[in-house]
Every structure is written in structure tokens, then in C-alpha cells.
């Protein structure tokens, strides 16, 4: 029993179960397998964006350009796809990843190497990528008949009864979990998030590590862009507006410290599930769809409030333990 309550994200888990129970009482129609799967499908992209955002938040930075990167990568891969239909879909996944990676590295160079404040640097690149997305697309939209079947199947097809986009999310989550907990580079991201100076003294090049973090974030956003166009069989330069806020909200709900250095992959998974349950729940209630933004904003404030107070409590407990040792 103690093992269960001692679990780091126990509070989050309780919150998720509570939400599910409330949803079950008010809208029981939510609990059919097909609607649950479609709920997961619609939120898989947010989950992947949140994983990328998590790496950036761990370094103590923030990336608000991911919505624009999503748009740019999606537009590039889908527009090229409609011109070169004979190429296999793997190419377009690679194109999406590559465009996103380049965008992420631009962010990383601005922040890690040229030492610009993350918020302002990504604010600038948010404008630039969105504008480039418009220039690439020429303001045109793509409609379902312009997509090849294999391209759409890449996200909207089904494998083992689940949509492919969900499998993509699972793979990304597993890889991210392994990367951040096992690999040296992953641990170094935590090191510079906790204390840049001491990490520097320990021989960690914080500029390079930030480059890695923003690169991962951009690459994932690029992948999401490609999957977004495939998932909805639709492509326009306006897609992904405001997605960065949702990704940040998921991270905060999942217990990622905004000050850096604290994050767990299972927390992000739970945060993603909570967010998807909330949005789906609201969309099921009649006449509440205009409330979406306000409710999301209120949830973020409450979540940050809890997040900050929990970090404070944890720090106090650590101090007490240290005092007991001395």
C-alpha cells in the first residue's frame, strides 16, 4: 500500500480516476470502445508535442514555436506528396522529421549558442515559421482527394485495432522514456535544468545540450505536422495555431516543473490522458463548446498553482531530511 501511495505521480493518478468517474456519471455514452479510441486518436498528436515540449521545459526553457513548426513541416511534406505521388510514405515521414529538426536546431542555436531568452527567441521563430509555411503553401489548401491512400493510412489506418497515429505516440513515448532515463545525454538535460552552473563545472556543454533538447522538440513537432495532415487528410498553413499552449498545458498537468529539472514520462502520459478526457467530456456536453478556451485556461492556472506548491513542499521535505542527517 505504501508503495502505491509513495508513487511520484499518485496525486495525478487520483485526479485522472476522479475525472473518469465524473465523466462516467454525467456522460455515460463516453465509455464505448470506439469513442475512447477516437478520443485517443484526436489527442495522440498533442501527446507527441507534449513530449517534445517536456524536453525543452526540463532545460528550464520554453518553446512556443512548435505550432508553427507543425504547420511548416505538415505543409512541406503534404504539398510535396501531392506533387510526387509515386514516392513511398516513409519519405514523407522523413521529410516531416527533417524539416522539424532543422527548425528545432534553429531555435537551439538561437537559445543555446547565441544565448537569447527562450521565450523571445521562439516568439520570433514562431512568426518566421508560420510565415514560411504560408509562403510554401502559397495560401492554398489540400483536400482529401489530393492525398495518396498510403499517406493517409500512415496515420489514419489501423493496426491491431488501433489507429497508426496512436502507435506512433506509443513508440515516441517509449523512446523518450528510455532516452531521458538511460542515456547520458538525457540525464545531462536534467542536469542543466536543475543547475546550469554546477552542470557547467561538471564539464557539460550546456549550449550543446540545449541544442539537443530543442532539436528533439522540433523534430517531434515536424513528425506531428506530417501525421496531422495524414490524420485529417487536410492541409492548410493555419493548422496548429495555439497547439503550443495545449502541449505546455499537458506538461504542466503532468507535473513537469516549469522552472526546469523535474519531469517524468509517466506524468506526461497521465497529463495527456487527463487533457483528452477533459476536452472530450466538454465536447460531449451540449452548448459547452464555447467554454473550451476558458476552461482550459482555468485548468492550467490551477495546475500550475498545485505544481508550484508541490515543488515547494518537496523542497521543504528534502531540507528537513538533510537537517535530520546533520
Amino acid at each position, binding site marked *: 500500500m505504501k508503495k502505491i501511495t509513495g508513487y511520484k505521480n499518485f496525486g495525478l493518478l487520483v485526479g485522472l480516476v476522479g475525472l473518469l468517474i465524473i465523466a462516467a456519471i454525467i456522460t455515460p455514452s463516453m465509455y464505448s470502445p470506439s469513442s475512447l479510441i477516437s478520443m485517443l486518436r484526436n489527442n495522440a498528436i498533442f501527446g507527441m508535442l507534449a513530449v517534445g515540449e517536456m524536453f525543452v521545459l526540463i532545460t528550464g526553457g520554453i518553446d512556443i514555436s512548435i505550432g508553427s513548426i507543425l504547420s511548416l513541416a505538415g505543409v512541406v511534406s503534404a504539398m510535396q506528396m501531392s506533387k510526387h505521388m509515386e514516392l513511398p510514405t516513409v519519405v514523407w515521414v522523413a521529410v516531416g522529421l527533417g524539416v522539424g529538426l532543422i527548425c528545432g536546431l534553429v531555435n537551439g542555436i538561437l537559445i543555446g549558442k547565441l544565448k537569447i531568452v527562450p*521565450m523571445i527567441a521562439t516568439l520570433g521563430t514562431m512568426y518566421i515559421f508560420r*510565415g514560411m509555411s504560408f509562403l510554401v503553401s502559397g*495560401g492554398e489548401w489540400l483536400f482529401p482527394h489530393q492525398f495518396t491512400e498510403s499517406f493517409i493510412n500512415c496515420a489514419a489506418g489501423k493496426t491491431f485495432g488501433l489507429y497508426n497515429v496512436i502507435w506512433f505516440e506509443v513508440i515516441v513515448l517509449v523512446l523518450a522514456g528510455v532516452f531521458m532515463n538511460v542515456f547520458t545525454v538525457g540525464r545531462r538535460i536534467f542536469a542543466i535544468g536543475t543547475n546550469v552552473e554546477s552542470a557547467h563545472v561538471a564539464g557539460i556543454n550546456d549550449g550543446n545540450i540545449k541544442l539537443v533538447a530543442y532539436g528533439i522538440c522540433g523534430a517531434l513537432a515536424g513528425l506531428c505536422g506530417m501525421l496531422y495532415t495524414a490524420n485529417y487528410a487536410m492541409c492548410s498553413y493555419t493548422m496548429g495555431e495555439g497547439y503550443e499552449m495545449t502541449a*505546455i498545458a499537458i506538461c504542466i498537468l503532468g507535473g513537469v516543473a516549469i522552472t526546469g529539472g523535474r519531469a517524468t514520462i509517466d506524468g506526461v502520459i497521465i497529463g495527456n490522458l487527463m487533457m483528452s478526457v477533459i476536452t472530450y467530456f466538454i465536447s460531449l456536453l451540449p452548448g459547452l463548446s464555447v467554454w473550451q*478556451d476558458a476552461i482550459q485556461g482555468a485548468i492550467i492556472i490551477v495546475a500550475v498553482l498545485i505544481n508550484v506548491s508541490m515543488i515547494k513542499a518537496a523542497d521543504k521535505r528534502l531540507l528537513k531530511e538533510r537537517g535530520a542527517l546533520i
Partner: protein
Amino acid sequence: MSGNANAPVRDLTAKESFKLSKFLVKWEMMLVYILILINVALIINKPGLYFSRGTIQAIIESGMDLSMLVLGMIFILMLGDIDVSCAANMILSAMVTGLMMDAGLPVILCVAGGVLTGGLCGAFNGFFVAYMKMPAVIVTIATSMLFRGIVKIVLDVNVLKNFPSFYTALAWSDIAGIPVAMIAFLLISLIFVLLLHKTTFGRRLYMIGNNPTVTTYSGINVEKTKMEVFIIMGLMAGLASIFFVGRMGGGVSSTMGTGYEMDAIAICVLGGVSTNGGKGKVYGPIIATFIMAFLIYTLGLMGVDANSRKIMTGIILIIAILIPNINREFWAGLKLKFVYNNNKNVEAINIKTQNEVKILKEEIAAIKKNADLSADKKAAKEKECLDKIATLQKRCKETTAALKTEQQEDNAAAKKRFAK
């Protein structure tokens, strides 16, 4: 401390004398040059349009809807914080005024209601940032969703059209060729200049921006000051709603004014306000407001579409931040990397020699000017100095070469050791 009467006392009455050369390369003056450059470009491209009546007024008026947000944002950035909720706050204030007008209340009450709503929203942000110690970015992102969400709930897809008539008059009319909005903007910015540069409140902002911990220890209530600044920002957002609604021709819907917060931040940064806090003046952003208005108008005339202008805004934002980074240290870093092969010993010896040579050259100049010495004595002393310079430079070259070969050998040895 008290016993030591001979301790040097800093002369507080001394003032740095005015130097024209320093004044001309100030950041604010740079902005003025940029503004003139844009104007020249516009004159060359469209001379007929530029000198026709009303063009310049139209350009200036087009930039004034942002001006109030810019003024508020200066103080926020001065603290090292950020407020991305100000555009949503502005729309919310406009909505409150519109709803009160619909209810048939007196005009003064409606305007005051709108501005106070802005202040209230600012206080809401300030409470979480100052007293709850939450990061300003996250709080204001959330509250921007919240404020805009409230507008969406109340208005849905409706448009409010009932606004005081002086709103549009303020934004569109001019007195003797000078836009009324610009006069209002300059008057309000005068208050901000006095507040930031002439009061203790302004000094406190600089102090908090530079080091909040030290400020706390020196007995200043940081939380209260932060709260005040956020309330000022909120009130300015409320005032901005007057300019904005007037500019939009007296109508408000829930999707208006998205991205205004980003433009306001971009203008502040272009105006030389550091986003790390503690640096900047009010004059810079005031000039930058005009630069942005002229730039966007010029680009529009040249046939650049709205989305390419977005790219321009982004690039300007990043370049404006990068320019202060290009200082002596930056060049030294580049030189170390590319000229001295990352070898700090080489760098040190080169800098040392440069300094010594510089001193010797000054000596030569002094000797030349010295009237007491005879001509041949002068020549002899000069030669002595020149010889010294030559030997110094020769020695420097030799040591540099030696150090470089040493480094290469070290690298080769290290490669050999780790190759196994």
C-alpha cells in the same frame, strides 16, 4: 567605517558631461536613423504618395492602436517578466465597455468600467506572479486563454457595435495635420518617462530587474512593486481598448486582436528594452512604435503580403536582440576561435604584446611633440623605441609558433592514446 574620515567619498553631485560622439551612437539615435532610412526609402519609391496630403497621418494612425500596450509592456519587461495576455485583456475590456453601452449607462461610466476591468485583469495576473511566485509566461498564457475564453462565452459569434463616438474620433481625426491619437500617445508616454526616469518607483523597477534578491534584502517590497506594475499593464490594456476599438471602426468580436501582444513585445525589444530585465528606456520603444508603423506600411506599399510581414517581424525581433550581443567580447571570442586556434596562451601573449607596442607608440608620439629635445636626440630615442617594438613583435611570433606546435603535438599524442 564611521571612524575612517579619509575614506574616499563618491561625488554624487558630479554629472557625466554631454558628449556629442556618444550621443550619436546611442541605441535611441540608431532607431531614429532607421526611421529616417525607412522614410527615405518610402520617398524614393512613392514620391507622389508620400507628399500627398494625409499619407503620413494615416501611417502614424495605423501604428497607434498598439502604442498603449507597448508602454505597459516596457515596465513588465523591465522586471524580467512577460505578459502575453494583454491582447486578450484589451478585448475583454472593450467587451465590458460595449456591454455597458448596450445597457444604456452613461458614457463616462462605460469607459471607466472598461479601463478598470483591464486593471482588474492585470491585478489577477499580478497576484499569481508576485504573491504565488508562478512564472509569468505560464500564468499569462493561461490567463490569455481565460480572458479570450470569457469573451467567447459572452459574445459567441456576435459583434458589439455600440461604442462611445469619441473612440473613432480619437483614432481617425487630426488637429492641424497632427493625429489626435499621436498627441494622446505622446502625452501618456510623457507620464511614463517621468515615472520611470524621475521617480523612486522607476529606480525600483531597474533594481528588481537586475537582481530581485538584493532588492528584497535592501528593504524594498518586491511583491508589491510587481503587483503595481501588473496593474499598470492591465490599466494600459484597458486604455488600449479605446484606441483599438476606434481603429477598428467601433466594433468588437472575440477573434479580434490576436497576436497584438507579440507585436507589442517585438516593439519593446526593438526599442532596446532587455528581456532579461533591468535595461532599457521609454524613449526607445516610443520611436520603435513609429518605426514599426512606417515599416509595415512601406512593406505593404511594396506589395509584400501580410504573412511575409510576419516573417519580417520575427527576423527584426531576433536581430534586435542579437545586436547588443555583438560587442568587444563577441569579437574576442571569434578571434580566439579562428585566429588563435582556441589556444588561450597564444591569445594572452598576443594581447600583451599589442598593449606593450601601443604604449611604446604613444611614447614615440610624445617624443615627437616634445620641444625641449634636439632633433638628433629625438631620432635616437625614436629608433630605440622602434627597435623595442620590433624585438617584442619578433618574440611574440616565436612564442606563438612554439605554443602552436606544442598544441599540435599534444593533440597528436592525445589522438594516439585514445586510438587504441
